[in-house]
């Protein structure tokens, strides 16, 4: 199981500023290990963001996304105390879901 995401969600007016860092190698299938063997693909392919119980953002990602991906989003109409749930799934079918609460 991958390490937890770090999620920060703070309110500016009625807009929630959401930042998330995912712990993931995002191997692009082009790097080689010390023995010269290609390190296989291992990367996040799909991301879902829910705020206050509503799916607000769905994303798909490829191997051009950096290791330990960081994403930032803005969601209008959010309130302090609303729950933010973020989930990812990678090309091996591994998933991780974490949540945070929007702070004022």
């Amino acid at each position, binding site marked *: 199981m991958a390490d937890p995401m770090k999620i920060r969600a703070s309110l500016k007016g009625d807009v929630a500023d959401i930042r998330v860092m995912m712990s993931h190698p995002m191997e692009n299938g082009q790097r080689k290990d010390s023995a010269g063997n290609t390190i296989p693909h291992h990367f996040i392919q799909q991301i879902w963001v829910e705020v206050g119980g509503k799916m607000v953002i769905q994303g*798909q990602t490829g191997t051009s996304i950096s290791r330990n991906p960081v994403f930032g*989003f803005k969601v209008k109409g959010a309130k302090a105390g609303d729950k933010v749930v973020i989930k990812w799934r990678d090309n091996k079918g591994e998933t991780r879901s974490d949540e945070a609460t929007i702070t004022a």
Partner: protein
Amino acid sequence: MDMFRRSLLKGVSASGALAAALAAGILKPTEVLAADEWNRAAFDSKDAGAALKAIGASSATDSKDIVLTAPEIAENGAVVPITVLSNIPNTISIALLSLKNPLPLAAAFDFSEGAMPEMQVRVRLAETTAVRALVKTADGKFFATQKEVKVTVGGCGG
């Protein structure tokens, strides 16, 4: 049931521009970029033209209403912060490509239910390249802008 797979983009609870478009029958739920299965054809495309075709964006209108923020010079191609903000009304999806990467399509995101059409990401750039942001609106049109990023040390190999 996995709540995350029960995509509202396929369902009945969509709102705003997207719901209006769905209701009007001008937008099939599958026409947003990121709602369904991972788009293997697009992400496995080795050139930007093929990737754009695979997301249905063979033609796009250049637009100054897309704000693409990226460094002019990226010393470390492994981590290049990029922000895309669309000021185009009824934006439902944003995609980002690095044109000279081995696999150009970096990300595609759909926005609904109050999500503002803006995304911050960090990408790898293999070499000096143009990065291109694509915006899809609820009526199925694509708009684009791009910016050159000079890369000192490429971020893909090693």
